[in-house]
């Protein structure tokens, strides 16, 4: 498979996952903004902008920092490369460039999502309700993943799709947890209070994990346990640990089929091991925000290593006999 194809498939998957996670993050922010709190809209809506790396871009629009402006900017703005609209568009462009590598069902799913997204305006969002829109984005992403799992051969192309999804998700969960951190900063007096409780609950709900939390811990909502679930619990599908299990699994498969030693494989395995053998108390002792920052930084480096190893950035010679055997 061409490196350009691997690149397209990987980014197609990342962008779909990114759109879903943006919807999840907006959902949690919106829910939190409805909590009775003394906070200004500014302290409520700045964190999601910072986390998405969109604070500078938003500032340039000169719009007041209010919920509808931020939601419009992060969900629909065609001028914002990180908006849900642009992510879906980018996913579709990547799919279109490599149509021969994906199944008809995948193409139809991603294309019809884009066609619907393209028509979406802010008035529709208000009309259907923000939460329904976020649900729609999540549903389309679920559908795409389901179609991918259900129709794609378990070959190279599938591995790159899976890799893109898992790395993007690991990153998104780390960032989502960090929203909570940013949110808490302005009003430390709320820690442990009622508002705090609802904020953690909203966070869990946004990653479809409220019930998972109750089933796993049989306890009231405690920050350390929420963090444990979302960072370290391998049974929780959106946790960083579970995502890294997928990443290492995929990278090992690729390493075996290409019979090569890759720096990305080693990096991912080291990151995964750290997640497997660290306890949440240690993370809190180290500092949650600091841990997440390291994790996000590591994800970025891993992404660069993957591009270098598989997407042609390094131009290393393939083992010809292996290539033919796996072709």
């Amino acid at each position, binding site marked *: 498979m*061409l490196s350009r194809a*691997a690149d397209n498939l990987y980014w197609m998957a990342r962008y779909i996952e990114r759109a879903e996670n943006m919807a999840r993050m907006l959902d949690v922010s919106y829910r939190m903004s409805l909590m009775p709190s003394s906070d200004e809209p500014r302290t409520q809506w700045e964190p999601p902008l910072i986390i998405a790396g969109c604070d500078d871009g938003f500032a340039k629009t000169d719009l007041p920092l209010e919920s509808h402006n931020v939601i419009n900017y992060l969900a629909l703005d065609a001028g914002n490369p990180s908006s849900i609209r642009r992510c879906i568009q980018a996913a579709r462009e990547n799919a279109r460039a490599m149509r*021969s590598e994906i199944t008809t069902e995948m193409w139809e799913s991603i294309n019809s999502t884009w066609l619907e997204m393209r028509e979406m305006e802010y008035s529709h969002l208000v009309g259907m309700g923000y939460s329904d829109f976020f649900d729609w984005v999540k549903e389309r992403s679920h559908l795409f993943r389901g179609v991918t799992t259900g129709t794609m051969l378990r070959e190279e192309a599938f591995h790159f799709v899976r890799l893109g999804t898992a790395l993007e998700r690991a990153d998104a969960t780390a960032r989502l947890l960090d929203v909570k951190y940013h949110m808490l900063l302005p009003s430390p007096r709320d820690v442990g209070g009622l508002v705090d409780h609802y904020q953690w609950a909203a966070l869990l709900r946004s990653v479809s994990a409220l019930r998972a939390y109750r089933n796993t811990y049989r306890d009231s909502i405690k920050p350390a346990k929420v963090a444990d679930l979302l960072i370290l619990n391998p049974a929780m599908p959106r946790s960083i640990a579970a995502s890294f299990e997928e990443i290492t699994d995929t990278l090992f498969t690729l390493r075996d089929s290409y019979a090569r030693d890759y720096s990305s494989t080693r990096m991912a395995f080291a990151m995964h091991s750290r997640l497997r053998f660290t306890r949440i108390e240690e993370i809190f002792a180290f500092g949650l925000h600091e841990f997440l920052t390291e994790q996000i930084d590591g994800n970025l480096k891993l992404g660069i290593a993957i591009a270098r190893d598989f997407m042609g950035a390094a*131009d290393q*010679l*393939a083992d010809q006999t292996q290539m033919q055997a796996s072709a």
Partner: protein
Amino acid sequence: MAGPDFFDEMRDAKGVVRPAYGGVAAWLDKIPVKEMDRKRREAELLFRRLGITFAVYNEGGDTERLIPFDIVPRVLSAEEWAYLERGLIQRVSALNAFLHDVYHDQEIIKAGKIPERLVLNNSQFRKEMVGIDLPRQLYNQIAGVDVVRTGENEFFVLEDNMRVPSGVSYMLEDREVMMRLFPDLFARNRVAPVSHYPETLLTTLRSVAPEAVRDDPTVVLLTPGFFNSAYFEHAFLAEQMGIELVEGQDLVVRDGLVYMRTAGGLRRVDVIYRRIDDDFLDPQVFRPDSALGVPGIFEVYAQGRVSLCNAVGTGIADDKAVYMYVPEMVRFYLGEEPILNNVPTYWMSNEDDLKYVLEHLPELVVKEVHGSGGYGMLVGPQSSKAEVAAYRERVLKDPGAFIAQPTLALSTCPTFVAKGVAPRHVDLRPFVLSGEQVQVVPGGLTRVAMAEGSLVVNSSQGGGTKDTWVLRG
């Protein structure tokens, strides 16, 4: 207006159906117009779903459109085909011999059979190719020879298309769609299959791989990319042959070899079926502004460590002025008389020819020597006085850039149009493959001028396509 002056492929002058068209005529008699219309729309839907579109230049708005497909097949008898096939193989063999000669000893020039200036001063003559030896001494692997019919036993070659001929996907898809729409028709008629074309093409490409790797070469198809008008065909052929569809950016030259960038690392490439023009192949040798090609690829090619199909420099063989000398090439290289006719051609660089052409412009077809796709041509009998006058000015500015030919009475085939089934003018582009053997898959692309009386069949000018049947003997 199609009338008694034109050869009707289905009926003779007395209105009697010719034997080859027996099956089609019987079918046309029985099928109601409404049913035909329904099938036509069904065909259109199939084409749209398959994504078979064609980008058209110089038009505002929607540049992706379907080429009209006509559901009435065009039929050639086994005898007619055998004759065509012999003629095509002869012609392409001579052209390949000519290419090898002009890039080596230039015997044909020394023998005075073709003017030296016409070859050596031609922009299609690639000096870089002089002295380079190619596998099997073959320059052209894929030719799309345009043939028109004017009578019972009269076929003329219009153009040889030796560079990057396109249209073969229509030959394959038209058949595919016809078989889906009218399976009975194929059960009742003995139509030679065409679907093995991709396999034959792949065998041909492999057969000209550098000798050291010929037992198992890696073949790829090089496309200019998504925005090229024939991108669909590139993707289609790559898929059918099971080879990678690459762009220039996917290939890289390293240590004297060409590699493609795969997820598993760089992988050596041995044969490139390139669908980009010479000019864009290698920015270090040809157009320096080309972003479509691969820097350094020409050097690897010159060393014989990668094969390009078709070879660099085949354009000299399908130049519209060199065309005049193809019958001479057949005699010179093969010692045979040409089987297929050449259209009498006036090259305006000759003063006598220029004089004649200027006096007879309204009767002639005038083309740019380096033009293609029916752009920038004059069909005298179908042009207004003003159009003819304007064209005359263009010719006078640079006579050597034009050739003229008599307007040919293109044959007609029954075609389904708005008012029912009516005769429309057609041409034929069979695809000749040269490798270990020279072969022609029995069929080709039949293009049809959908407008009444029109003689311009180019898809860029609103022409349509038909399934082409070669009956088995």
